[in-house]
């Protein structure tokens, strides 16, 4: 497994998670969206978060990205207890989110989108040269194929737009990148491109959280797969150990079998599944 790198002076074991959630609960009115959910991601690890509609994936993502606040439970970043009140608080803690709708401004060019809200330069004036140079560096790091950084993103393909959105999440040097359904609207070749990007992120020792419906994608890139069902941890698998059938069974709730329980116990000691 991965070896986490720690700048902080915390007594780090080699597998200490960069982001850890314990016993997270969230309800909307009478609906218990999440109940006692545990989740963790380490540096250089791709964790897939899967589950059926209404399983609580989106709620969990929004709690991690600061859009919602949890009712109960605790969150730790690199071993430190944190409270995330807002999306900008999440970003400054090093948790970047690529939302499903990408949140790009179609009328602005690639450079403008990459640095939107965190423009380089003085407080009032932008340094376009520095931003363009940095844009090329980011895109090259991702091995991205963008013809020029000076065209409006409206003229890019779906995969290229996803690339821009992912590159954009790296601008603040995050520790964790969350990708919400990154391949949902993409074709075969573009999906492969995005999966390459995910692997690049892992190579750069980032913690990657991949939310997806697509079992093939999840099994192609994830190291671990966390299954949510009806707002609870249903199961947790190492990707190498699991078959698609087992995954589907866990997602649909037909996983009350010995194999899944054994896997879950082995992977998450003390976890409640």
């Amino acid at each position, binding site marked *: 497994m991965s070896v986490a790198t720690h700048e902080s002076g915390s007594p780090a074991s080699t597998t200490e998670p960069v982001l850890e959630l314990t016993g997270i609960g969230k309800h909307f009115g009478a609906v218990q969206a999440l109940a006692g959910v545990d989740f963790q991601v380490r540096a250089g690890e791709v964790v897939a978060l899967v589950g059926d509609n209404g399983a609580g994936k989106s709620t969990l993502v929004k709690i991690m990205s600061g859009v919602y606040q949890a009712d109960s439970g605790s969150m730790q970043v690199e071993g430190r207890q944190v409270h995330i009140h807002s999306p900008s608080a999440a970003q400054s803690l090093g948790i970047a989110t690529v939302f499903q709708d990408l*949140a790009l*401004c179609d009328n602005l060019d690639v450079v403008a989108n990459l640095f*939107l809200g*965190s423009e380089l330069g003085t407080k009032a004036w932008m340094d376009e040269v520095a931003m363009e140079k940095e844009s090329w560096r980011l895109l090259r790091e991702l*091995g991205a194929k*963008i013809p020029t950084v000076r065209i409006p993103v409206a003229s890019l393909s779906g995969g290229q737009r996803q690339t821009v959105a992912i590159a954009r999440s790296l601008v603040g040097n995050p520790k964790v990148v969350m990708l919400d359904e990154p391949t949902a609207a993409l074709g075969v070749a573009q999906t492969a491109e995005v999966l390459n990007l995910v692997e690049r992120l892992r190579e750069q020792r980032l913690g990657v959280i991949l939310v997806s419906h697509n079992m093939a994608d999840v099994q192609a890139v994830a190291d671990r797969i966390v299954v949510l069902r009806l707002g609870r941890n249903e199961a947790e698998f190492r990707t190498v150990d699991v078959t698609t059938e087992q995954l589907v069974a866990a997602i649909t709730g037909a996983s009350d079998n010995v194999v899944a329980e054994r896997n879950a116990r082995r992977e998450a000691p003390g976890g409640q599944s």
Partner: protein
Amino acid sequence: MSRTRTPQADDTAARADLIDERLAQDTGLRGAVDAFRRRIRDGDLGLLPVVIGLLVIGLVFYLQDVTYLSSSNLVNITLNAVPYGIIAVGIVLVLLLGEIDLSVGSISGLAASITAVMVVNNDQPLVLGILAGAGTGAVIGIAYGLIFTKIGVPSFVITLAGLLGFVGVQYLVLGDQGTINLPRTSALAQFAREDFLSPVVSYVVVAAIVALYALVSIIGIRRRTAAGLPAQSLTLVLVKSAILLGGLGFLTYYLNIDRGWGYAVVFFIGLVVLLDLVLRKSTWGRHLYAVGGNVEAARRSGINVNWIYISAFSLTGTLAATGGLMFLARLTSVSQASGSNDVNLTAIAAAVIGGTSLFGGRGSAYSALLGVLVLTAITSGLNRIGVDSSVRYIVTGAVLLLAVSIDAIARRARASSGRG
């Protein structure tokens, strides 16, 4: 852009992309001409239609009346354009956000009334009167912004209410007096009517502008080259500077045959250039475009969206008030009719005719300048050949429709070529 879409071999992708961009942009004069033609074909018309429009208008009225293009008439056109133009600059700001301010006419009339009452009736210092007038616009704009962001009333409705409400306030301010006359000797009236750059000064200014443009461009090339980025070629900069020098120089020579560049005109053009710089180079300007393009994306990237709205509405109000003061100065009077009728629609039409999209995120400060020149040139021409004002309204309406139609067609071309 089809040529830049060619897939690259994986291992050389990043490098090839850079080279590829150079192919598309950095082949000097020829490359610039090619890029321009490609942009037009893809429906990114920019300021081209309005420039062609101006040429056609000039030609048509010249054929009707040879004195139309005389120095004295062109000077008049520039002077008449100023008040509308300043208001149109403000309209560009709200249009970039995808919002609208229908009350700029009322704000201009109210501001002019307040200044006139203070300066003429109450003998307050002129500076104080101007500050009060412009400040009124700023405060109204802030109020619009607060109502828009905190309560969530659509800007169309807020400013429609303002359109009606501030006409009433204007009547109150003017009181029983129907009209207040500003003395022609007032510095404000002088500024808008009598003050012109002397020929020597005007040529010095032109030379300074061209030198500054060339200098900034060359520094830009050096910085980009030093950073390893593609830059425009030196030849292109020199050609552009020469065109700028020739154009501005000739225009200055021609206007100087008559009175030359009015102070108010220089003020207006300076305002446009300043706003263009702010829109393109400042963080605030970038955020304004972002909010106009995708407000949710702007919010999620940490932009203070409410501040952008409030500051933009406030600037629009201030500019509308400033335009009102220019009307006061140019006409040397303010009445209950000030700011009514065509002021609103001319200012909004000017911004749209200049190419600023009604749907937000697309447009430039220069659209206000060019749009208002088109409308003022048409008004002047129709007045010269002596048609009724009914015809003027009809023609203005037709031009507005034509301009928006061109924009709609261009947008289709953009969509089909993927320029959004």
